[in-house]
């Protein structure tokens, strides 16, 4: 029998691929732990996401499509946990709104005394960064830059940009004011931007 040639990847049940599933689980656990700051809550969320994925098994032509789907389930589980739990982190670990950030000067060093960019700090144009998105190396750099964010900045940033929580919801979760959150997000974004500028754009990889 002559097999018909396939021009699209054969549909595959990715849940059967043990090595892939194991790696996927690790990534999900890492992501959930960062968001929830609690190992057992993270475990539960990942477990439920896996159960959800296996219950509603579909076949996907591309592994990345399956991964997206499972992560979408995980995101919703994390949102549920965040919304249902009253406090995830003891308040003693939370910075009070009125604390002046000790590293205020570091962040402000991007600007001169009148609040304008220092020449060396001024953002230059990024040519086609979306092309980088299909480049594995780029995502490694991106992930490293994310990991370079101090914990509270990283958490606020990921809640906003990865999970997609509203600023009100984040304020509630982190028990912080809108102004403080604005500062957290501003610094996270500035630091991330600068990291990508230096480690990707300027290197012309």
């Amino acid at each position, binding site marked *: 029998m002559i097999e018909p040639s396939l021009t699209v990847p054969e549909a595959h049940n990715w849940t059967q691929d043990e090595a892939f599933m194991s790696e996927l689980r690790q990534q999900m656990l890492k992501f959930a732990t960062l968001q929830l700051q609690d190992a057992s809550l993270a475990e539960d969320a990942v477990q439920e996401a896996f159960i959800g994925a296996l219950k509603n098994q579909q076949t996907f032509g591309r592994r990345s499509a399956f991964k997206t789907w499972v992560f979408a389930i995980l995101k919703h589980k994390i949102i549920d946990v965040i919304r249902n739990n009253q406090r995830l982190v003891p308040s003693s670990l939370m910075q009070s709104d009125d604390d002046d950030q000790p590293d205020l000067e570091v962040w402000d060093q991007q600007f001169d005394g009148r609040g304008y960019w220092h020449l060396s700090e001024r953002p230059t144009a990024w040519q086609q960064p979306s092309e980088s998105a299909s480049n594995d190396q780029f995502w490694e750099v991106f992930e490293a830059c994310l990991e370079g964010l101090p914990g509270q900045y990283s958490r606020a940033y990921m809640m906003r940009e*990865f999970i997609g929580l509203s600023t009100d919801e984040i304020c509630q979760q982190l028990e912080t004011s809108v102004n403080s959150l604005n500062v957290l997000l501003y610094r996270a974004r500035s630091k991330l931007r600068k990291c990508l500028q230096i480690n990707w754009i300027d290197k012309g990889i």
Partner: protein
Amino acid sequence: MMNCKQATQLLSQAQDRKLTFIETSGVKLHTSMCKGCRNYGKQMKQLSDLSKRFLEPEPKSQPKP
């Protein structure tokens, strides 16, 4: 007129809320004259788009033609 520090703070906040008319005008005036902040504003949007795609990896990159 606002400086770069003020403009960049608003450009960050623009990702999270709608800026007021006055804020928008101020930012537009500043970015029309400041390339650094113009780029910063674009990159705020690009960062957001990239972050959304972080959890949606492309298939392993193809060898370059």
